[in-house]
């Protein structure tokens, strides 16, 4: 059975701090790993990682994948109150009837105080 574990489950920091969110996974027929940010209801796409060791960056956010050790991290530097959200990671499946299927972790709740 596919397994996705995120840590920590929740995190409280102050503005300006740097945070690292972790995602470990065990899925059959792995294709890529996606990170989403969820505020209120709809998750919004952040990154898709397919290759090991290649960092992806978007502003203050960056992420990297280790396909050998089966984990990914999401870094947020100089956090702002607007970064407060649930961060979800989701490995995707390649091929067969599970093509494109995402298996989500339980999420990390990040709270950034002013």
């Amino acid at each position: 059975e596919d397994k996705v574990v995120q840590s920590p489950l929740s995190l409280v920091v102050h503005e300006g701090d740097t945070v690292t969110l972790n995602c470990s996974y065990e899925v059959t027929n792995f294709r890529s790993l996606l990170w989403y940010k969820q505020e209120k209801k709809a998750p919004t796409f952040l990154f898709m990682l397919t290759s090991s060791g290649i960092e992806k960056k978007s502003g203050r956010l960056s992420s990297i994948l280790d396909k050998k050790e089966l984990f990914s991290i999401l870094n947020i530097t100089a956090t702002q109150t607007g970064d407060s959200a649930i961060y979800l990671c989701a490995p995707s499946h390649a091929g067969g009837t599970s093509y494109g299927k995402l298996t989500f972790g339980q999420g990390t709740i990040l709270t950034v105080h002013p």
Partner: protein
Amino acid sequence: EAGVAQSPRYKIIEKRQSVAFWCNPISGHATLYWYQQILGQGPKLLIQFQNNGVVDDSQLPKDRFSAERLKGVDSTLKIQPAKLEDSAVYLCASSSQGNTYEQYFGPGTRLTVT
């Protein structure tokens, strides 16, 4: 580009009643997904459509849940009869044929079963 539309946004029903949710994906997106997100958990895939055909419904409780995607565009998800444990947010997502792994989510429908 208009996003994924869902209705209603909120629904409260009593157990054993029936309910239906509607989703209109982003124009031109061939793949449509329905997820169930219980409080404190990540989204769980219920069913995946490719155009108007079902690709994966392995986690859909078929004794009470049904879904269809007429003409490969809009989709409805129905629960009949509802149980207390069906209380959750139901998210619809879509992706284009050439970019199946990046899914765009709608605002969701929060269902409360009393």
